[in-house]
């Protein structure tokens, strides 16, 4: 299946997402910080990045900018993954260059399917 980079600073979320993705047969790489995400993206060349927007060092917006700035990772599929679901956030994320948008909390039953949609 696919290799997916999961970026989230909340351990519970990270572990849950990791388990669900593994159960669906994917390979999972994790990062806990924005800079960690940029580095992992460079080294691992994942098929998909699930990027939390609120991160401790550089936020998701800046991490995306750096990923897009590098020729190595510029074309990666990056999906915004956030708990702050506000009206207009999705539009903002798409305008900033994300390939998709997922809001937390995740729906366990449909999560794998939703991620599959971003991969195809």
């Amino acid at each position: 299946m696919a290799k997916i980079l999961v970026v989230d600073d909340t351990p519970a979320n990270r572990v849950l997402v990791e388990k669900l993705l593994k159960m669906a047969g994917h390979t999972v790489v994790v990062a806990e910080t924005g800079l960690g995400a940029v580095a992992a993206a460079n080294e691992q060349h994942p098929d998909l990045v699930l990027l939390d927007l609120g991160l401790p060092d550089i936020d998701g917006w800046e991490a995306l900018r750096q990923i897009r700035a590098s020729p190595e990772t510029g074309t990666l599929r990056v999906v915004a993954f956030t708990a702050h679901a506000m009206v207009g956030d999705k539009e903002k994320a798409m305008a900033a260059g994300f390939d998709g948008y997922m809001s937390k909390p995740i729906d366990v039953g449909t999560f794998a399917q939703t991620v599959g949609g971003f991969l195809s």
Partner: protein
Amino acid sequence: MARIPVPIRTKLAALLGLLVALLLIVGLVGITLLRDANARADHLTELQRKTAAYRDLRQSTSDQLSAVASALTSPSAGQLDTAARQLNLARFDAERLEFVAADERELVELVRQAHAEFIGGLQAVLDLARAGRSDDARARYGTTARPLADRLDRRTNQLVHKAAAETLDAVEASRVASERSQAAIIGFAIGSVLVALVLGAALSLSIISPVRAMDRRLAEIAAGDFARHVSVVNRDELGALAAHLNEMNDELGRLYGEVEAANRNKTAFLASVSHELRTPMNAILGFTEALLAGIDGPLNDEQKASLGWVQRGGKDLLDLINEVLDLSKIEAGKIVIAPEPFDPRELLETVIAQHRSLATGKGVRLSWREEGMPEQVVLDRGRTRQVLVNLVGNALKFTEQGEVEVIGSGGSDDDLCIEVRDTGSGIPAEQFDAIFEEFRQIEGTVGGTGLGLPISRRLARLMGGDVTVRSTIGSGSTFRVDLPRDIRGAAASRAVVAPATGGERLLLAVDDDPSVGPLLEKMLSERAYRVAAPLPANAVAEARRLRPNVITLDIIMPGRGGQDILRDLRSDPVTRDIPVITLSVVDAADAPTDANAHLMKPLKKKDLLRTLDDLDRERVGAGNR
């Protein structure tokens, strides 16, 4: 008058005293003038009487003269006796003369002498005639009686002329005096009326204008404006009243500020706590569901049942947290109402289906029907659904047997009206208000946050409707939702707009009058401005989202007014620096002072453009510093 430091009662008494005094003076002047007129009339009568007496004297003189003359032409005893009787009557004439003309002593004395001599002369003539000396008598008549008569006549004439002259003088004087009295009385009356009017007006102004000012101020205080003091210069009871009013205003303002701050803190606290609680809840629920789905391997039935309890408890807790978060969002004005067209039948069916299993489990019949419900409405579907879910859920919760029936109709104004009727225990009438307050429930009833009804009512009101209740103890309650059929109508250009980009600038028009947005758009047609006009309830949220270049803000609006919205805008770091132009029928003096500019309605294009230019210059100036 207002600044005189005496009680109003004294002022009123003084004014009344003055009026009485003026009346008395007018009366006294009138009486005096009447008395003068009376005296003049008496004087005239006197003069007339004199004139009559003189004339009588002259008449009787000529009668006597002719009686003697005719007695002389054919002297007989009869004739002579008649003439003698005539002469005797002369006494009365003389006495009457003295009586009527007591003030003309000198002239009357002369007349009396002449009269006495004349009568004496005639007596002598008669004596001669009676002695048979007719010729002597005739001669004597010619030589003495006639000249005496002439002299008497001249003197009498003097009296007559004098009296006539006096009469003329008196008539003239009377006329002049009458005119003068008239003028005096009219003048006095007009003067009194003027004095009374001026003083009365001054006094009533000094009472009424401060009362009006205080009344206006009280109305403003009632509307929640504590920013100003009423200024009353009176140094009487009203001045004291105004001073107390101002003290009360300050105290109320202070208390209001404290209450508001406390309420804001509570709302902010609830919002942040709920938000923080949601993250771990998501982990709990997520892992529970994942475990149930077999993420860590298969589970036996008991493990599944136990996890089911964890899941149910977690969901209840999350519902509660979401309700608290919802309420705090509504209170902070951060809920965006997004109208969309939908069929209320389809919504009702969904809501009923969602509660079907709960109803069946309790043995309560759950049904819905419609009576002329609109086929399509334009409302916030999610929020409408939230209200209905709340009401149907509540009805089921409080109904142990019988049925819950939902009836959709067109309401009274052909809007959307949905009634949820249950056969529960009912609600006492004195609780009708309390159940819509936060964290209140009827004492001794089953659990829950008690937030469902307050949230439902607030959501319905945000959409221009309401939730109401009627109930009979023992036979059940009916909750009724009334909603407008189309809330876009209230906001023709209030569709969701994208944030400002590029060189184009965005003006956010916050006004309960839907015509203001299009009007501003028209006025700004030659500038690079777009105009967005959100529902006032969404103003703060929309300002956060759109980050407009400038906001126009109506001050007087139903629900949260411009003052509240401005305060929210200023307390949010995202919207704090957006220039705000207050736009209202109220005077600039009454507008919130922390707005950047104020424009009066009706709005003039010229003023709007100039104000926008001024604001631009200020911002450029601030940027250069």
